C-alpha cells in the first residue's frame, strides 16, 4: 500500500533541480536542509532557514519550479570582533520542480522560529481514490 503510494509520488513529487543560477547578491549561497513528506491531501516541505525574517523570504513559482530564497543579515554589531566564526550570513536558496498534481493556487507558507513550512495541496485528480472491482 505504502509502496504504491510512494512510487506514484516519486514520479511526480518535487524534485531537486541542480542550481544552475548564480547568486547575484554578495555573500554565501546556502542550501537549507529540507524534510518533504506526503499525506493523502498535501505535500509538506519543511526547510531550516535560521536567521531569516519573514520580510526577507521570497517564494517564487515560475513554470512549475518552486524556489525558496531567504536572506540573512550579519547579526554581529559593528563594534564586535569575531572570536569564533562558524557560520556565515548569506542567502538560503533551493528549488523544486512541482508536478501538475499540485494545486499551485493553494500553496501556503509559514515561517516559525527559522523553519519554513510549505503546504502544497494536491490537485483533485491526484488524490488517491478507491476503485471497486466488480465481479462478473
Amino acid at each position, binding site marked *: 500500500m505504502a509502496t504504491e503510494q510512494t512510487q506514484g509520488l516519486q514520479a511526480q513529487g518535487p524534485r531537486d533541480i541542480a542550481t544552475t543560477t548564480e547568486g547575484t547578491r554578495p555573500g554565501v549561497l546556502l542550501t537549507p*536542509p529540507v524534510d518533504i513528506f506526503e499525506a493523502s491531501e498535501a505535500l509538506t516541505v519543511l526547510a531550516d532557514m535560521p536567521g531569516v525574517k519573514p520580510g526577507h523570504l521570497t517564494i517564487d513559482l515560475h513554470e512549475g519550479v518552486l524556489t525558496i530564497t531567504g536572506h540573512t543579515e550579519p547579526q554581529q554589531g559593528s563594534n564586535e570582533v569575531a572570536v569564533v566564526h562558524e*557560520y556565515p550570513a548569506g542567502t538560503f536558496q533551493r528549488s523544486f520542480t512541482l508536478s501538475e498534481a499540485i494545486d499551485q493556487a493553494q500553496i501556503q507558507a509559514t515561517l516559525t522560529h527559522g523553519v519554513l513550512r510549505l503546504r502544497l495541496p494536491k490537485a483533485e485528480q491526484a488524490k488517491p481514490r478507491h476503485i471497486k472491482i466488480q465481479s462478473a
Partner: protein
Amino acid sequence: MIVRQLRPWSVAWNTPTNSFGQMRRDMESLLERLTGAAGEGPTSGVFPPMNVSEDRDHYYVRALIPGVDAAKLDVSVVHQTIAVSGTRQSPEEQGVSYHRKERAEGAFSRSVTLPESFDGARVDAKYVDGVLTLTLPKHEAAKPRRVTVQTS
C-alpha cells in the same frame, strides 16, 4: 533519534595553529558546495553552529537552532563555560510518507569556554527566528583599560 554530535567541545582561540581548523572548515564547506551535498551546515556534524564575538563590555554567542521551543532550550553557566543543550523534535505527523529527511532531530549539547570570566548572573538569552543570542557581560577586571603613561 539522531544525535548529530554529543561531545565536549571547547573553542580554540585565535592562535596560529587554529588557522588549520579554519582552513579545514573552509575546505569542507567548499566540498559540500561542489558535491551538492545538502543537509549539512557550514560545520558539518557539529550542532548547533556558533559564532562568538566580543566588544568592550560583552561577549556575544550566537547559535543557529531553528525550530525548537524556547522553553526547552537549556543554557547553563559554569565558571567561564557556557553550555547550550536541548532537543529538536519535529511534530509527529500521522499517516505520512517521507520523501526526504535531511533536517537533524534529537538531542544536542554544546559548550563554549570563553577566555575571560563573565558575569554569569546577568547573562541575557534571546531566541529570535531560530537564532539563539546570548549576551554575556564581562567582569570589570576583564575589560580593557587605558593606562596613561607619565613622563617624569
